[in-house]
C-alpha cells in the first residue's frame, strides 16, 4: 500500500488529497514503523525510479503540417498519384528507410525514433496546434482564434513544464519560445507567471540579440551598477523591501531579471555568436538551424522547455518543390546536427527532442501538385530524454493514410513527454472558475517509446 501511494509522489491526488495527507495515511497504516524522514527518502527514490529522464525538452513545431509520406513514411509501392517523386534511402539502422530528402538524418537514425502512427481528428491549423500544444481540443473553430496567445484557457506544454519543474540554477527562464510566439504557447489559466519568455528575433540574423536583455549602448556597466545600487537603496528607504504577496514576487523577478542582464552565465546562453563558425555552418544558416543551436545553448544553461516555431509547411500547392527546396533540407541539417551535438556533449540522455506538426498531409496528390491537410496519420520524431533509440514505432497502411497498428493520439504523446520529464500528467489544477483540469486530458504513456 505504501508503495502505491508513493508512486503518485507529485502533488495532489484526484480529489485534492495532498501529499502530506497521503503520507499521514501511510504513516498511520504502518504504525510508526517508518519515520517521516525515512518515508521522504523512499519518496525521493520513488520519484527517481518513476523516472525523470529528461530535465529539458526541445520542441520543434513544424507549422502547417509536414508531409509524412515524403519524409518519414515513404510508400514506394503506392500508385503514382500517391507516392510522389521522392525515393527512400537506407539509413544507419538496417531496415529503416527514410526519404532521400533527409540524408543527414539518415546518418543518425540510430539516435532517434520515428513514431509513424500518430493520429487525431482535427484537420485545422489553429485548432490542431491548440490541441497538440495544450492537450485539449479548442472551443473555437479553425481560423477564428484571434490574438496571441490564443490558448485562453488551457496552458501549453511549456507552461506546464515551467510550473512543474521551475527554474534551474543560473537564471535562464524555464520556458523559452523562438523565433516567434506560438499561437497556443501561452500559459492559459495558469497566468502570466508561467508565460513563455519569447525571443521575438530570429537567431539567424547577424545582429541577433534578445529583447530587453542587453544593456542599451548608452548605459555602461558601471552606470547600470550605480542604478541598481540606487534602486536597492530606494526600495529599502521606501520600506518596500519587506512586502509580501505579488509585490514580493515582483522583487524576486527583478532579481532574476538583473541576473539575466548582468550574469555572464545567463547572458552567454543567448549569445549564439559565441559558437564556432564551423558549428553554426553545420546547423545551417537558416532560421530552424540557428534556433536549434540556440536551443542547445539554452538547455545547456538550464532552460526547461524550448519551443521552436518553424513555418510554411502548409503545402497545398507545389508540395514537392517546397519540401525539396525550402523546407526539408534546413530541417534535415538542423535536426541531425542537434542530435549529434547533444550526444557529443553528453546532453542527449537528459534532453528530450520532439519534432512534429499539427497534422500530416494527404497521401493523395491534388491537382496543384500539392498535398492537403491530413491529421489521421502522421509521423512524430523523438530523440533523447529517455526515449528508445533507432526504432520505428507503428505502421501505416499501404498509402500512409491510416495507422494499421495501434494509433497514438495527442494525449498519448503528451503523457509520454510529461512522463519522461517526471511530471504526473493526471495532476490537476483548478481554473479561475474552480473547475479541476488535469494536466493532460487523456491518453497513456507510449511504452514502446520509453527506453
Amino acid at each position, binding site marked *: *500500500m505504501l508503495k*502505491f*501511494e508513493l508512486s*503518485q509522489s507529485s502533488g495532489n*491526488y*484526484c*480529489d*485534492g488529497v495532498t501529499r502530506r*495527507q497521503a503520507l499521514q*495515511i501511510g504513516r498511520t497504516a504502518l504504525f510508526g514503523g517508518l519515520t517521516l524522514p525515512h518515508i521522504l527518502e523512499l519518496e525521493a527514490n520513488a520519484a527517481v525510479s518513476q523516472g525523470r529522464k529528461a530535465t529539458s525538452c526541445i520542441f520543434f513545431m513544424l507549422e502547417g503540417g509536414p508531409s509524412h509520406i515524403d519524409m518519414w513514411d515513404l510508400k514506394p509501392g503506392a500508385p503514382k498519384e500517391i507516392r510522389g517523386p521522392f525515393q527512400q534511402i537506407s539509413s544507419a539502422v538496417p531496415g529503416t528507410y527514410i526519404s532521400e530528402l533527409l540524408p543527414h538524418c539518415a546518418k543518425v537514425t540510430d539516435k532517434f525514433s520515428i513514431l509513424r502512427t500518430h493520429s487525431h481528428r482535427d484537420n485545422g491549423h489553429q485548432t490542431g496546434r491548440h490541441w497538440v500544444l495544450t492537450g485539449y481540443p479548442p472551443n473555437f473553430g479553425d481560423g477564428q482564434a*484571434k*490574438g*496571441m496567445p490564443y490558448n*485562453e484557457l488551457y496552458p501549453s506544454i511549456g507552461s506546464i513544464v515551467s510550473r512543474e519543474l521551475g527554474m534551474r540554477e543560473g537564471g535562464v*527562464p524555464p520556458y523559452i519560445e523562438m523565433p516567434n510566439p506560438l499561437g497556443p504557447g501561452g500559459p492559459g489559466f495558469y*497566468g*502570466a*507567471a508561467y*508565460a513563455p519568455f*519569447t525571443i521575438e528575433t530570429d537567431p539567424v540574423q547577424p545582429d541577433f540579440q534578445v*529583447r*530587453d*536583455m542587453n*544593456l*542599451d549602448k*548608452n548605459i555602461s556597466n558601471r*552606470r547600470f551598477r*550605480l*542604478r541598481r545600487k*540606487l*534602486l536597492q*537603496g*530606494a*526600495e529599502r*528607504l*521606501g*520600506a*518596500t523591501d519587506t*512586502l*509580501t*504577496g*505579488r*509585490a514580493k*514576487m*515582483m*522583487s524576486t*523577478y*527583478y532579481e*532574476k*531579471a*538583473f541576473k*539575466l*542582464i548582468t550574469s555572464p552565465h545567463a547572458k552567454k546562453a543567448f549569445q549564439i555568436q559565441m559558437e564556432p563558425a564551423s558549428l553554426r555552418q553545420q546547423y545551417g544558416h537558416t532560421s530552424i538551424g540557428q534556433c536549434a543551436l540556440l536551443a542547445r545553448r539554452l538547455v545547456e544553461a538550464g532552460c526547461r522547455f524550448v519551443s521552436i516555431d518553424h513555418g510554411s509547411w502548409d503545402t497545398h500547392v507545389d508540395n514537392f518543390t517546397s519540401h525539396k527546396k525550402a523546407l526539408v533540407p534546413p530541417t534535415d541539417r538542423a535536426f541531425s546536427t542537434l542530435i549529434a551535438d547533444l550526444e557529443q556533449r553528453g546532453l542527449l540522455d537528459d534532453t528530450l527532442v520532439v519534432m512534429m506538426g499539427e497534422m500530416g498531409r494527404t497521401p493523395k496528390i491534388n491537382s496543384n501538385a500539392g498535398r492537403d491537410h491530413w491529421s489521421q496519420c502522421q509521423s512524430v520524431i523523438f530523440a533523447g530524454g529517455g526515449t528508445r533509440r533507432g526504432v520505428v514505432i507503428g505502421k501505416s497502411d499501404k498509402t500512409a493514410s491510416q495507422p494499421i497498428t495501434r494509433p497514438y493520439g495527442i494525449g498519448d504523446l503528451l503523457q509520454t513527454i510529461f512522463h519522461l520529464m517526471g511530471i504526473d500528467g493526471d495532476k*490537476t489544477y483548478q481554473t*479561475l*472558475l*474552480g*473547475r*479541476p*483540469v488535469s494536466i493532460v486530458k487523456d491518453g497513456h504513456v507510449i511504452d514502446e517509446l520509453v527506453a
Partner: protein
Amino acid sequence: MRSTSLSIALVAFVLWAFSTKTSFAAEFRISPLPITLNSPESSQQLLVTAIKDGRTLDLTRQVTYEVTRPKIATIAADGLIQALTEGFTQIIVQAGNIELRVPVQVTGIKQPSPVSFRHEIIPILTKSGCNSGSCHGKAEGQNGFKLSVFGFDPVADHTALVKERRGGRILIVNPERSLILRKPAGAMPHGGGLRIQPSSLHYRRLRRWIAEGAQLDAGQDDPDQRIKPAIAIDVEPQEQILLAGVMQQLKVTAVDEDANQRCVTVEAHYESNASAIATVDHRGLIQAGDIPGEAVILVRYLGHVAVCRVTLPRPGVRFERPPESNFIDRLVWDKLQQLGIEPSEPAHDTLFLRRVYLDTIGTLPTSAEVREFVTNSVADKHSRLIDQLLERDEYADYWTMRWSDMLRIDQAKISPQGAVAMTRWLRRQLKKNTPYDQFVHAIVTARGNMLAEGPASFFQVLDNPELAGRSVSQLFLGARIECAQCHHHPFEKWSQDDYYAFAGFFTGIARKSVPNGGKKIVLQPGNDLKQPHTDQIVPTAALGAEHADFSAYSDRREALVDWMVAPNNPFFSRVIVNRLWGHYFGRGLVEPIDDIRATNPATNEPLLNALSQHLIDLHFDIKAFTRTLLNSRVYQLSSHSNESNALDNQNFSHAAWKALPAEVLLDAICQATDVPEEFNGWPVGFRAIQIWDNRMPSYFFRIFGRPQRVSVCECERGNDPSIAQALHLMNSPETMRKIRHRNGQARKLADSDMSPQSIVEELYLSTVSRIPTEKERALMMQAFVESGGSRQTAAEDILWVLLNTKEFIYNH
C-alpha cells in the same frame, strides 16, 4: 435514520483541567443525545465541548471513552460511534474527574433496510473522490469508467457501475471480488490509489449493497424501508472561535422531510476557503493555523451545503477603536475588534492622493497636483478632491475601459465601428452617471443597430441564449451558473434546469443584417429551452424565482430586468457593491468578486449587507456610492502594516498593494517621463486607457496582462508579475527611449536652472507622488556625484530608479 432522535445537549458543571498548568470550572456538553444507530454501517459522531465565559473548547479527542457493553457498539478515540449488534449500551465519557453516561440504542442490524444507491452509495462515491471532475467524473471518464460529476445523475451512475462492461464491475455472488471494491480498496492496481479502506463503513456499505443485488432503488416500494431524501444538512458548530493551533471536530446531520436525522459526518465532504487560517480534513476535523482571521468550512453532502465559520482572534490585543467617518468604518472596526487586529494609521496626504487618483481615474497625479494638495490646508480637502476626481474626464475614460472589459467589447467580434459605437455609449453613461439599474436595463434589453451609439453589440458578442444567460448571470448577479451547463453546480443549488430556465430569457432576439453592412438586434418570439440531459422543456425562470410570466412583455428580457433591479433582489446590488469594493480595496468582500453564493460568504457579511442597502437607498447612484467608499477612514488607511495586521489580507486593516492595470502603468510611465506613447495607427496624444482596440498588438499590454475580452470575468485581467515585466521596465529600448528623450522630463530638468536637490524632489513628485525624505535626497544625490558632471545623466538615472521601484509600479 428511520427514527426521530433529538439532539439534546447534556450539560454538566465540571472542573476540567485543560493542561497541567491551568484548571477551571466549565460547563460540559455532549451532543447528540440520546443516540440511535439503525443500520449495520451507521455511525454517529459525538461532540464533547467545554463552555466557559461563552467560549467553547472541543474536547472530543481529549476525553476518554468506554462502552459498557462492547458487543453492541464501539467508539473510537475521535468520538465516532459504530454499531455492532442490536441492543442497548452506554458510553462512559471520562473528562477529568467527571464521568458522563451516553445511552446508545442499536437497531436494524438483523434485518437491515436495503441500501439505497441514490441516497447511500452516491455519497460514498463523492466522498471517496471517485466522481470528482479530475477522476471518473470528468467528461470522458477515466480509464473507460465514467461517473456523473459529483453524482448528479444516479441513474447513469448505476448503469455505469452495474450494466456496463456486461456487469463486470459487480459480482453479486461474491461481492468482495467486485472491481468496484477491489480497485479502490487497493486489492488491484488503481490509478487513483487507495480510496476506500477495506475495514471502513464505506467499504461495508458498498459490499452489502452489492450482496443485496446492486439495485438502483431497493426498498423504495415499502414505506417502512424507504429512505427519504435529505432535504437539508445541519452542521455543528456553525460558528466557532478558535485559538491558534486548536482543533474542532464537526458533526454533520442529514434531515429528511419528516425531520428524521442521521449522522453523515463520515460521508460529508469538507473544504476550507482559507487554508492559512484553518484547514479541515476528511473527517471534518478543523485545525486552526496561526494567522488570525476568518475561514469558512464548506460542508457538502448529496448536493446540500452548509458552512461553519471559524474565527481566529489575535489573543491579548487591547483594541482601541479609531474614529468613524461613516458606517463602513464602524463595521470594519467591529470586525477587527472581534479578531484583535489593529488597523494601520491613516495614510499620509500624498499616499492618499496617489491612491485615489489611480483608483478613481486611472491616472497618476502630476507633481503640481501633489504640491497643491500638500499645501492646501482646507479641512475637508480629502472629500473635495474625491468630488473633483469623480467629475474628471479621465473618470469616464477609465471606467469605460473597465466596463469594456466586462462587457467584452471585442472589435474582432463586433467590428471596429461596432466597438467605437458601444465605447461611445458607455463613456456617455459613465460621464453622466446613469443610475446603475438603468445602465444595466439598457444593456440587458439592448437592441437596434450595432453601428449606432448604443449597447446592442453586447448581444453580438453573446450570440446565443446560453452564452447570454450565463454571462448576464455572472456579470450582474454574481452567479456562475455556467458550471450547471454540464452538471449540478458543486457548491450551489443551481441545476441544469436552472441553467436552461435562465437562458430562456434570451431566446427572443435575433441578429439581422442591415443595408449599410452592419447588423441589428431585433425581437422575435421567444421560447422556453430544452434541457438536453432530460430532453424536457424547462419553463423560463430567473434564479430561485417562479416561472416567468411574459404576458405583460413584448421582450422576454424586460421581465428579467424587472426582477433583477427590484429592491428585494438578493443578488443584483450585492454584486456591483462587491465589485466596486474589490476595485478600491484590492480585494472583494466576497472573492472571487463575481461568485456570490451562500457557500462563499463575505469576510464581513454585515458590511456587504449595509453597502448593498446603501446603494439601493442612493437609487443606484454609483458616484455617490463611490464617494461613501472613498470618504471612509478604512479607504484612507496607510498601506504600511503594523505588527498585529501584517498578515491580515481579508479584513481591510491596512490598504492593499494593487498591481496597476497594464494601460494605467503605461500611461503613468508616459506621464512621468513626459513622453507620450505612439500607438500603432492612432494619433499621438491618445492615452492607453482610451484605446478601445482590444486587439491592438502591443508587447507591453501582452506582458502586463491586458485582457483580450474573451470572458465577462474581471479575473481575465492578469496581475501576476513576471521576469519579462521586470526586464521590460528596466532595460527595454522603449523605456530607455522615454527616459532619455530629448523632449522628456529628465532632459527638461537637466536643462533647467533647478538645483540637483530640486530635481530629485521634482522626480519623486512626478513618479511616486511624494516629497523625498532627507535620506532619499542624500541617496539620490549620489547620482549627481557619479555622473561626471552630466546633469542629464544624473536625472536619467534617478528617473530610471524611481520608475523601477515597487512604489511606482504598484498602487498602494
